[in-house]
């Protein structure tokens, strides 16, 4: 049997509910309806009373989760879209993220953010806001790029004693398939070499891993071997794996679907410049979405975000330096 990224998320939640009586799911339409994307399909039936529909109240959803976590539960909050989590932003960054530091009481909540662009979704159903959450101390921000990681990292997110922002990419939901669920996995906090190469390091995460892989295939026909680092988690950032890769290739291109100002790609370049400046044979480059809201029409959307083609073009320019 094969299994999609979305089904892996559903299976991880089913397993978390089955294995741990402290787990419950709270979110809009997650109950009998099974969620806007069906990430909680049938879970309300399989686990009666533990998959609760919430009012359209992102602030109170997260506040509720924080309170439940204080009392020893392990809530999973589903935001219908990452963009909507901004209504609950205050509770996430000021309440959940500060609780342990202020009080010594852990806040083990998992907030699932279906994020990232898909064609036709427009400005308010497409955003990549992982860097905004990563900016705040007290949060772990995960960005799985594979079916296996979607499963294992969600399970680890629920098990961690800290608040986790779980960024699951909507573009990958149904596109990505695996033959089976993993029995073991890299732990959270470790990046993965998604492809080995000697000429250039591309550091990226989530859906952009797949665009970068496609670009690397194209470039390999031209004789270039691209190494791709899949960050897996943007906070913490596995700087060691990134620097080690740059040590091998001497060239760095960071790719993110998020907007260009600040963010994960800028952070990577900053860290490599500080820790591995001497390893670089050329100025490090970055490729992000354009600095506009995410457009609706396919033609505009496809040009707004980095693609295999734009990654390959940028990589070529860097390789020729």
């Amino acid at each position, binding site marked *: 049997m094969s299994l999609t990224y979305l089904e892996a998320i559903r299976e991880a939640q089913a397993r978390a509910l089955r294995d741990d009586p402290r787990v*419950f799911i709270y979110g809009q339409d997650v109950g009998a309806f099974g969620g806007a994307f069906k990430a909680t399909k049938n879970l309300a039936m399989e686990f009666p009373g*533990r998959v609760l529909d*919430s*009012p359209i*109240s*992102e*602030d*109170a*959803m*997260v*506040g*509720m*989760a*924080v*309170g*439940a*976590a*204080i*009392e*020893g*539960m392990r*809530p999973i909050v589903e935001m219908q879209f990452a963009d909507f989590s901004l*209504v609950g932003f*205050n*509770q996430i960054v*000021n*309440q959940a*993220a*500060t*609780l*342990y*530091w*202020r*009080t010594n*009481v*852990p806040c083990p909540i998992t907030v699932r953010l279906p994020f990232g662009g898909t064609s036709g979704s427009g400005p308010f159903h497409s955003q990549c806001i992982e860097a905004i959450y990563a900016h705040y*101390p*007290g949060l*772990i921000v995960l960005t799985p790029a594979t079916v296996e990681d979607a499963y294992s990292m969600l399970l680890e997110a629920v098990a*961690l*004693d*800290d608040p986790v922002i779980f960024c699951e990419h909507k573009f990958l939901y149904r596109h990505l398939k695996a033959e089976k669920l993993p029995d073991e996995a890299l732990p*959270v*906090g470790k990046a993965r070499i998604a492809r080995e190469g000697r000429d250039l390091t591309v550091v990226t995460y989530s859906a952009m891993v797949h665009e970068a892989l496609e670009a690397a295939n194209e470039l390999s026909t031209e004789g270039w071997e691209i190494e791709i680092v899949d960050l897996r988690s943007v*906070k*913490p*950032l596995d700087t060691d794996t990134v620097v080690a890769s740059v040590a091998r290739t001497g060239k760095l291109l960071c790719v993110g679907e998020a907007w260009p100002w600040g963010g994960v790609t800028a952070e990577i370049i900053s860290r490599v410049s*500080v820790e591995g400046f001497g390893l670089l044979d050329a100025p490090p480059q970055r490729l992000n979405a354009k600095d506009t809201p995410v457009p609706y029409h396919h033609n505009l959307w496809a040009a707004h975000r980095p693609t295999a083609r734009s990654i390959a073009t940028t990589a070529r320019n860097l390789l020729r330096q």
Partner: protein
Amino acid sequence: MFQTALDTKPSQETKSARDIHLSAFRYMMLARVLDDKFAALYRAGGKIHGGVFLGRGQEGLSAAIGISLQKGDVFAPLIRDAAGRLAFGETVLDSVRTYLGSAHGPMRGRDGNVHRGNVQEGLLPMISHLGAMISVVNGILLARRFQKKFGTVGAACIGDGATSTGSFHEAVNQAAVEKLPLVLVIADNQYAYSTPTSRQFACDSLAHKAAGYGVDVQTVDGTDFSACLKVAGEAVSRARREGGPQMIVARLLRLCGHGEHDVAEYVDPELKKSPLGRDCLNVAQDFLIQKNWLDEPQLAAMKDEIAHEIETAVAQAQREPAPDPFAEEWRALVSGHLSEGTMEP
């Protein structure tokens, strides 16, 4: 640290009206003298880092809520709830330690003044966005339902200003949908910082909001501690008996600035002269003396005892070490292996 007296505090039902009133009055007085001490230390300069926020004029309502709660309940106070905190079991020493920045205080210097709390004891340390505390109380109550722990309630206290926030709306509605044993106390003290209620809301009474949520509501004269005790006691009992969320709207006047940095010249002098401007402590004292539940010598003894308790706590906190930045564990995550550290070279 919490007072052990809390463990043995008899429930309200078994205490006489006289005992309840006297106990509430003592917490009011304790809070007033403690607040005055913080104000004096603030004005003296150097002792207190950050602001000082007093509960002057709100002690009656506050004590009534605190005394109506039991051990095991949850209390999310507002910034003017020194009396309620003490009645709920917070020690004088914990509040003094927090204001004076003792490393031994419950917040260890990481947070201060009114942001103190003790989560394990059910006393939630507020974030500044006060409306956001209500849904956290909801979450604790929901968790207890999951865990089949029944019979406890959660009280969240806010002012008129917080009723204008989205968090308030979301959380009250949420509590009503889940039928949680929440007691939401609104101290309508006429000003949110400097903003009068005429610029805060347009309904005749904040109590009218309750019907929109399907929540029970009682209004009370917040300057009358006896009336507050009755209303708070009843609301807590109804919530405890699975009666769903309860709202209390108490009208009173803040008899101080927003904080001690604020001289509050904006307060309407007519309001100060109106019944709302009565000092609840004087009202309570007159009530007790008239009832013959308290006489002048007892009052004097109570004041002496309180002054001594506070001076002792201040002296102790002043001897205690301040937080040490070199010994501080600069880590915001439980998961040490996932902490990014300070990024120092």
